[in-house]
């Protein structure tokens, strides 16, 4: 290195101090040359033959340049001038032996900042091209340019030439905050190999030895590239600049390319910037509501953040918040999602080919990734809305090593409750959520992540019934890089969800009741980058569930309530998985995964037995068996297959197909259409079998206009079995033998999803259209009562047509407007077909489950995002969001019901938001 440094210094002296220090002899030496359409190599070779000079140049810069020169006895300098006359190439003849051909104004000899590591031994090739002028404020660009034009020499040059392929690995980070850039797309030119950084910004790629140019693109980041000279395995860390302050926005997003190139089907990824642009009720950026605008994702209505993905029920989604399972992702009766938008980085939704590392739910995986704290300096932000406020602070604890991120959110909706009629005047409602992320980099190969999450909701309904629920999650993650080929991720954590209700209005009947679920999990994930054609993922997951299905206890001394507690349930769910991504050719990729999952229902528990071959009813109970602690009561197991394949017809057009099977061992019990706060979960047991689902899908992906417009078309067909539905009048709360109240149904779902997406440019957004059906059937008379006479009936969330338009127009960098519109078919309901008189009133007669539909849904929202000025050097940056939810004021029915009032049956439709709802939000960043 020292040698190299002094060499540069000499060069600097020669070039800077004596810019015209051409060697007299060489520069004037007469040359004979005649070339037609020759490349640089030929040109240089010709010159080198006739002079003593050795030319240094960057081959890649001359890719498209050809030389047409006819010179006879011309001085070298003339020849060179002639050759580069119409280009921006410069040449310098530095010493008797050296000449440089560079792109740019001149040769600059500043020592380039290097983040490349790896041994370097000896050199006979260098390129150093720098713009001559540094305009004030251009520093960043220049830095970038420097890094881009520098050639990183990686590896040991003297390494034996036995292997042709070597492994390059490294991290892509945000130059400003030090945070990893997830999902950055690296494409190696010529070799035509691409890779996407993982959730830690890490990548590992196998390349032939030699010179490569890597183009790096990521959403919200300036495109950059690196030139490398690869000798052996080595590391390359890449810093990217964010595009926030650029005038011309030419971002090409990572997922546009990955959409066509990745093997994943039905993967939707949205970053928080996009989420924040979408207008939502009360102006609180809401992750789950934005997810519902994607094709194939539905929700039963506005008061529910429960997602129905491709005909799946709300409990068939695995919602992971930094690996922690969130059982109730909503606040305030489902009005808000439980995730603070300020700490979220992005959201990924897997709905067709679910990677083998995930399992345990049938429909989808919703992966919510939080940001890591800023490693360079303390920053933060705060937001004020009509109903909620939030704050977040982040920064380094040890610079470049340890960072923290804290986010908190709370509500002050009590003022709204004061506006309610008298009977609710004493009500109180509130929620909060807290996030804590710590990241510590032990060394280059080991990083530790600690994530904590707490969310709590509490409602006091006119000092009568107090109702609350909370999520608590803690996880510790250790990322270890063994070498460039293998890295691992070991995660352990605790997830808890509980709800409780208490009432003390009538002292004799005062009670406290509740439900909770605890799970401890361990995940070990290994990523083995075998070579260019094979990338292997393998690992194991294990979850230990402890579920308290319900308690009902007296509250106060005068209460006569008998304490009632349903015995806890325990289970262990484990899975081993192996996944191989096999790039058969650059165009054709197959990804095959197997996940073998095993579920053990564990004691201590007394299990009721039922007469075999008869319906599971109270009258068919035969007895009970008590199992001791740790005893395996029932084991279910089986393989799950995850196969997907991609064939790229062109660079921007590909076809994908996938086949997936899933097993789900935990069920949510809910007899309401919406995801109610009192829903409970149930583990599979000897009488309730795990749910099983399989899905085939086929998709076409085509990008237009340099990948700025992305389109996709996916078709799927899905079969479900053992999906739980309920007998009439099922009692789900504190039921000691819940198996007698549920019935296993079969289901089929199919649909077509269409998406056009443009995330760059002044006008951006997406249009999605879905046509889909989800039908259920219970035709086994042995299983209990038949629903709909054993014929298929639509599920509650079967909404065949669904169109969403999300649009955003950036008038300037400080002002943008967003508009979204959504239309969907009304959801199915059971309507009365007649009436009768009983017990002093008219009563309704119901028949035919879900045979009718509520009126169709249509809504338009509008918002304006106003940013303060973009000067970098100010203490705070402010922004405003002003908008109107449901701008047309349409009364979209959420449900329809019939009620007997004054002995007359009346039908009503109920809307959640019956008018336009304006909102304003103020945000500050520091």
């Amino acid at each position, binding site marked *: 290195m020292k040698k190299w440094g002094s060499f540069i210094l000499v060069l600097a002296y020669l070039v800077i101090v004596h810019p015209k220090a051409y060697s007299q002899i060489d520069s004037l030496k007469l040359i004979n040359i005649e070339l037609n359409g020759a490349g640089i190599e030929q040109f240089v070779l010709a010159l080198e033959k006739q002079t003593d000079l050795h030319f240094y140049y960057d081959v890649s810069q001359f890719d498209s340049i050809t030389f047409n020169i006819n010179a006879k006895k011309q001085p070298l300098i003339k020849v060179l001038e002639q050759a580069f006359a119409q280009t921006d190439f410069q040449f310098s003849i530095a010493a008797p032996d050296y000449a440089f051909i560079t792109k740019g104004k001149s040769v600059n000899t500043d020592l380039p900042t290097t983040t490349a590591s790896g041994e370097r031994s000896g050199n006979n090739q260098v390129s150093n091209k720098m713009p001559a002028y540094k305009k004030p404020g251009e520093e960043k660009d220049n830095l970038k340019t420097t890094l881009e034009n520098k050639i990183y020499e990686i590896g040991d040059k003297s390494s034996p030439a036995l292997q042709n392929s070597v492994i390059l690995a490294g991290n892509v980070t945000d130059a400003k905050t030090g945070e990893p850039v997830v999902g950055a797309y690296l494409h190696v030119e010529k070799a035509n190999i691409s890779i996407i950084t993982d959730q830690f910004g890490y990548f590992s790629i196998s390349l032939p030895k030699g010179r490569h140019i890597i183009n790096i693109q990521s959403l919200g980041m300036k495109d950059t590239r690196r030139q490398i000279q690869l000798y052996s395995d080595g590391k390359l860390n890449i810093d990217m600049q964010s595009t926030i302050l650029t005038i011309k926005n030419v971002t090409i997003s990572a997922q546009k390319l990955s959409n066509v190139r990745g093997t994943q089907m039905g993967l939707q990824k949205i970053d928080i910037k996009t989420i924040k642009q979408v207008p939502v009720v009360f102006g609180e950026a809401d992750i789950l509501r934005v997810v519902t605008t994607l094709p194939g994702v539905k929700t039963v209505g506005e008061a529910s953040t429960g997602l129905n993905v491709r005909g799946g029920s709300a409990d068939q989604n695995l919602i992971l918040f930094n690996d922690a399972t969130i059982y109730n992702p909503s606040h305030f009766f489902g009005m808000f999602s439980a995730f603070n938008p300020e700490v979220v980085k992005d959201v990924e939704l897997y709905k067709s080919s679910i990677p083998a590392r995930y399992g345990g739910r049938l429909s989808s995986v919703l992966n919510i990734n939080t940001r890591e704290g800023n490693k360079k300096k303390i920053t933060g932000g705060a937001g004020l809305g009509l109903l909620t406020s939030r704050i977040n602070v982040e920064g380094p604890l040890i610079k470049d090593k340890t960072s923290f991120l804290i986010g908190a959110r709370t509500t002050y909706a009590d003022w709204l409750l004061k506006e309610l009629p008298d009977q609710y005047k004493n009500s109180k409602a509130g929620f909060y959520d807290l996030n804590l992320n710590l990241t510590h980099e032990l060394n280059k190969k080991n990083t530790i992540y600690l994530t904590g999450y707490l969310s709590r909701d509490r*409602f006091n309904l006119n000092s009568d019934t107090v109702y609350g629920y909370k999520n608590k999650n803690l996880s510790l993650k250790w990322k270890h890089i063994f070498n460039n080929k293998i890295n691992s991720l070991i995660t352990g954590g605790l997830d808890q969800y509980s709800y409780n209700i208490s009432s003390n209005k009538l002292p004799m009947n005062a009670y406290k009741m509740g439900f909770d679920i605890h799970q401890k999990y361990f995940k070990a994930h290994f990523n083995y980058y075998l070579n260019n054609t094979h990338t292997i993922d393998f690992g194991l997951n294990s979850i230990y569930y402890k579920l308290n299905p319900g308690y009902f206890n007296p509250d106060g001394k005068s209460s006569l309530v*008998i304490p009632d507690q349903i015995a806890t349930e325990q289970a262990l769910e484990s899975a081993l998985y192996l996944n191989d991504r096999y790039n058969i050719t650059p165009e054709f990729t197959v990804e095959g995964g197997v996940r073998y999952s095993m579920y053990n229902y564990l004691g201590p528990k007394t299990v009721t037995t039922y007469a075999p071959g008869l319906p599971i009813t109270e009258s068919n109970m035969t007895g009970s068996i008590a199992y001791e602690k740790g005893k395996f009561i029932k084991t279910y197991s089986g393989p799950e297959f995850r196969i997907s394949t991609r064939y790229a017809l062109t660079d921007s057009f590909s076809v994908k197909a996938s086949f997936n099977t899933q097993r789900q061992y935990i069920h949510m019990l809910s007899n*309401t259409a919406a995801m109610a706060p009192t829903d409970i979960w149930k583990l599979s047991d000897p009488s309730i079998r795990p749910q099983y689902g399989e899905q085939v899908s086929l998709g076409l992906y085509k990008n237009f206009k340099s990948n700025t417009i992305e389109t996709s078309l996916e078709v799927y067909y899905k079969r479900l079995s053992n999906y739980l539905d309920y007998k009439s009048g099922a009692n789900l709360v504190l039921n000691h033998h819940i198996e007698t109240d549920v019935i296993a149904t079969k289901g089929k779902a199919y649909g077509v999803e269409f998406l056009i997406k443009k995330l760059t440019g002044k006008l951006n957004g997406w249009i999605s259209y879905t046509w889909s059906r989800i039908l259920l059937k219970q035709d086994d008379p042995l299983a209990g009562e038949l629903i709909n006479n054993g014929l298929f009936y639509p599920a509650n969330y079967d909404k065949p047509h669904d169109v969403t338009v999300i649009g955003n127009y950036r008038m300037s960098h400080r002002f943008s407007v967003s508009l979204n519109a959504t239309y969907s078919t009304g959801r199915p309901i059971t309507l009365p077909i007649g009436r*009768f008189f009983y017990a002093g009133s008219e009563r*309704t007669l119901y028949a035919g489950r879900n045979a009718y539909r509520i009126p169709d849904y249509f809504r338009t929202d509008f918002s304006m995002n106003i940013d303060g000025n973009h000067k970098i050097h100010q203490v705070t940056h402010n922004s405003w969001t002003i908008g109107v939810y449901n701008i047309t004021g349409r009364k979209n029915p959420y449900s329809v019901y019939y009620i007997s009032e004054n002995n007359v049956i009346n039908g*009503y439709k*109920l809307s*959640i938001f019956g*008018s336009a709802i304006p909102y304003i939000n103020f945000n500050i960043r520091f």
Partner: protein
Amino acid sequence: MNKLIGFALVLLVTGCKEKFISPAPDVVTGYLVIEGVINNDGGLTTVKLSRTTSLNNNSDIPEKGAIVRLEDSNNGNLLLPESSDGNYTIDNLHLDTTIKYRLDIKTSNNEEYVSDLVAPRYNPPIDSVSWERDDKGVTIFINTHDPKNNTHYYQWDYNETWEFHSAYFASLKYVEVNNVITNVVYRDASDPQIAICWQYNTSGAILLGSSLKLSQDIIRLPLIKIPPASWELSVLYSVIVRQYSWGKEGYEFLERMKKNTEGVGSVFDAQPSELNTNFHCVSNPSQPVIGFFNICTIREKRIFIRNSELPNWGYHMGCSEVIIENNPDSLRSKAAGLLPTNPLILGPFGSVVTFYAAEPICVDCTLRGYNVKPTYWP
């Protein structure tokens, strides 16, 4: 949960409840509906038979001409004759609680329905019907308990009666000739009494209570809420509460019906449930039938609440009187639409020169109730 529902409703639904016109076709279902509990305390038993009808049909369809018999497991049977359209009654039943009974119904169109055999059920006497007053008015509670800890499932219904008075006790009335008021004279004994009236109300909701989750079979539940300053308690109020005891399935039948028709309209509505029954159509087993056969001692308790027990109840009709001269011109221009109350200035021989008059609703209580005193009224 109900409160929660209500809360969510009010919070979110700001005037967003609209009438819904059903897209479901008008189906003529015509299923038999059997209502009534066999009263085993010697009192009157009424079994009401009717048919389900389409949603848009506003009149009830009583099932006439059926043969309703109470059969016991020893092959004895009693006929319940039809006392009025669709009502089949029997009095003074004292059934043997050690054997089981069933109801057998043969309709005029030759359908036959039979219930399961059920034993007469014990029903503990009502301990008390009590009331409490707070700023939300008066709440009437039912208090009952089963010392044997064996009843658990209760249903109640009630009949309210209240006495109320006209704002002005009228001593005058108009004399009308060809619908024109010509004179004002004193009322006499032959005129209908219009100062004191009674009004009635029957529970329209299914009132259920269970002590299953309590350590003792004790019930104390609010049944009726009377808002402050309301007319029910302006003079004298009375309610008779009847208590029925049920088995688990019968209670569930009532609970489902209640959920389907009363506990709806929230964001978190449960799916409508099919009603369970212990009746079967013998002639056509797939024919749906609505009802649940039950035999118990029907207990009842009546209480009275006087206005004097409720200081500052605050009932106020908002009436005022005007003065009218008793001459044809004045009567013609002023008296129409008002009723005379009492004289102001008397002329010779007790003739009325000027008199007070007020809105009819303030004078004639029969516009809001009945002027016949109930037999049980003190």
